């Protein structure tokens, strides 16, 4: 009896050991950040570069993405042959205030703007739900033409840190003349910062390398 038990236990241990080595490693990466930082543009860039597909539509009006969108099984390979398999989750922009008046400036009708504000509010709740339940790592996107010390950024980085999630900070929009990615680097010295242009695809190789390092 005791021998059979020991054998059973040994078998179990061995299969756990095998699983650890051969289980398909897949990490779910959430792209977070304030509205209009370029989250969907980057998600589309990553999806196009590695699967030839797109994730969602982009717009200059804030809160274009109001539902989280997911693209699964993206395999990213680096220069030295290392790969990482990820699911990309493009999330709605997280902010503490949403007011429909902001959308009127873009020529939107009042009724439409109010609906957009309501959907955007639900979107923030959904993004935060994902962060709590399903995300293994975060790409935090910032517009490098803007001040990184906005309250929402400090809060979000704090929340991500408190959940012990690996994070890469992306200083986006370096194609614009006003961009100062150095300001973002000095604001968050405790995390890796990559300066890119999601729109032009500039410096995305560095981001992919950092993703393999941090999310692999």
């Amino acid at each position, binding site marked *: 009896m005791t021998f059979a038990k020991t054998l059973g236990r040994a078998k179990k241990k061995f299969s756990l050991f095998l699983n650890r080595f051969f289980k398909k490693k897949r990490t779910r990466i959430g792209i977070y950040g304030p509205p209009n930082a370029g989250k969907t543009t980057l998600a589309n860039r990553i999806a196009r570069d590695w699967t030839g597909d797109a994730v969602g539509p982009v717009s200059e009006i804030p809160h274009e993405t109001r539902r989280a969108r997911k693209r699964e099984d993206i395999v990213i390979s680096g220069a030295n042959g290392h790969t990482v398999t990820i699911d990309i989750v493009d999330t709605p922009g997280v902010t503490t205030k*949403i*007011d429909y008046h902001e959308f009127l400036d873009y020529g939107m009708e009042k009724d439409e703007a109010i609906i957009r504000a309501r959907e955007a*509010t639900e979107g923030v*709740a959904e993004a935060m739900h994902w*962060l*709590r339940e399903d995300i293994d790592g975060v790409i935090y996107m910032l517009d490098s033409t803007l001040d990184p010390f906005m309250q*929402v950024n400090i*809060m979000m980085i704090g929340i991500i840190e408190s*959940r012990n999630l690996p994070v890469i900070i992306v200083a986006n929009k370096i194609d614009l003349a006003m961009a100062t990615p150095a300001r973002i680097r000095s604001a968050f010295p405790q995390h890796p910062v990559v300066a890119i242009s999601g729109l032009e695809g500039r410096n995305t190789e560095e981001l992919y390398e950092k993703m393999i390092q941090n999310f692999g």
Partner: protein
Amino acid sequence: MPHKCTKCGREYKDGSTEILKGCASCGGKKFLYVKESELNKDVLEEKSIEEIAGESNEEVLEVSEPTVKDKAKKEVEMFDRVETIRIVSPGSYELNIDKMAKTDERIVSVGGAEGSYIIDLMSMAKDEPKKKRGKRR
């Protein structure tokens, strides 16, 4: 009827605003409400005010330090809010992302002023059975 400082026994007239700053003699923060007839009981029976406070059922008045607490309150106001979403007006919202990061429970506050809330009970009940089942396995 007057108050007496429980530390040093200094007497203060009823309704005195002085005690709000703490005892002027010793800086004590606790005061006992004493009856007129028992005003000198502590001296006559050679007891401290604290002992008398223990004997009588009278509540000991404790003066808080409003300045320090008020400052702390202002700093944590945003995090302290009970609601996850505040509807300032239709189409205008304030979101408490700190609270959203912690729980799915939705308490919605209506209007700019505090004191009016909508509580989404469904959001609080929804996930519970699933989690319990998961734990048992």
